């Protein structure tokens, strides 16, 4: 079943066309990969889906409901949560409090503090941050903060997570752990993911389907194997 349907999204910044007529759909429970060179428009696409950027054209629907034009918090409460490529932790409060707010306000929108705390701890455990629960979020290393981004998105109770380069800055060993973590999450919680990653191994290993963008234009969509064999993609992406 299609959970997310993106139709003809375009976005320009002044004269720059960051996205041109991008369409695709994502199946429930799938991991949908997004690749493209730097500046291809991946983060912009996430921001459009999550409601932070109003597209110049096109529409996005989630579970057959149009969400274009809705505010980010509304979209989140409908069940889509994104992480930020350039991390934005709530730096001055504890790691645990970061995820508790998420659980209180996100899609699960719990009104019970105890419940939210439980959901939060579960999210921290899922990404391996449980040990740092009492640290201030600002004191985490960059990769720690990336994990926190995931945990916060998870704790909202969203059905669909948009993860923007959460593996950047991890050692290969850590990347492997992260791959395991995401697969486990998908299985255990039946989540749908969209993934932006430059760590190709991870993207290929995790994705069911991948969309490749070049200067905001979709140039290929298909299984990892198809994408890996696509000459256009090879040219613009791997050189």
């Amino acid at each position, binding site marked *: 079943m299609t959970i997310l349907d993106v139709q003809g999204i375009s976005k320009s*910044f002044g004269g720059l066309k960051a996205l041109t007529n991008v369409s695709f759909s994502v199946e429930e429970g799938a991991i949908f990969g997004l*690749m*493209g*060179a*730097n*500046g*291809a428009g991946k*983060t912009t696409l996430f921001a459009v889906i999550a409601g932070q950027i109003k597209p110049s054209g096109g529409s996005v629907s989630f579970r057959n409901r149009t969400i274009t034009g809705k505010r980010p918090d509304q979209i989140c409460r409908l069940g889509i949560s994104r992480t930020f*490529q*350039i991390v934005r932790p709530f730096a001055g409060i504890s790691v645990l409090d970061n995820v508790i707010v998420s659980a209180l306000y996100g899609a699960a929108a719990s009104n019970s503090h105890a419940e939210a705390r439980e959901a939060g701890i579960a999210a921290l455990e899922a990404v391996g941050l449980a040990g740092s629960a009492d640290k201030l979020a600002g*004191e985490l*290393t*960059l*990769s*720690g903060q990336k994990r926190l981004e995931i945990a916060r998105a998870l704790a909202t109770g969203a059905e669909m997570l948009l993860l923007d*380069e959460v593996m*950047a*800055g*991890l*050692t*290969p*060993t*850590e*990347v*492997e752990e992260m791959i395991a973590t995401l697969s486990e999450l998908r299985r255990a919680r039946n989540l749908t993911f969209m993934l932006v990653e*430059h760590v*190709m191994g991870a993207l290929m290993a995790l994705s069911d389907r991948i969309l490749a963008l070049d200067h905001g234009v979709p140039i290929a969509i298909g299984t990892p194997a198809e994408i890996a064999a696509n000459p256009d993609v090879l040219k*613009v*992406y*791997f*050189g």
Partner: protein
Amino acid sequence: MSSASEPLMTVSGLSSGYGPVTILRDIDISVAPGSVTALVGANGAGKTTLMKAIAGLLPAWSGAIRFDGKDITRVPTHERVGQGIVLVPEGRMVFTLLSVEQNLRLGAITPRARDNIGDRLEAMFKRFPRLQERRRQLAGSMSGGEQQMLAIGRGLMAKPRIVLLDEPTLGLAPIMVKQVFSVIEELKADGYTILLSEQNSRLALEAADHGYIIENGRVQLSGPGRELIDMPDVRRLYLGR
């Protein structure tokens, strides 16, 4: 000119940290002139902290840093830049509200870097054409990877003698990663000295003449890059698969 056998930079017995928290303990490192030296370690090992201490952004609590035969442990950051120690920081730290070109020009603000800025700017644009396309765009509105290129470009504008590259490929597409590593090769060929911290440990160690494995703020292992790659422990812990 220091002789080839003499290191360009040595860090000895360095410890440092944030507030009350000690991060680096008794670090010893030496960087030979014209070499690429890699720092490898898990997240939170202290690589960034070490880079900052070398750049002078964090004070050394004890130990010493020598550069080109002189003790620079107490020298402030801007003078270190003036002597050619240039940090390309993790997280980029570009001047978000200034244009790409202004960022690059600011890179060349020290006296040693002030001659023929125009030419070097053009050279930089050749190296990173995207920067040229966007020379008037505000740095903060560039994509993550574009900002990373800008940070590297800005660092090179300072005419460094040693470049401290902290995770220079973070968030870069493979094509750009390749390009950064070829830049590293070029720089090395041009006689620059490079200290590199990189999560892509394999690539880093492959490119490096010498590598240091950092764990919990201490140097755990060191040796020529290739040798480190072949050590089973290193493979298991840092290289994956």
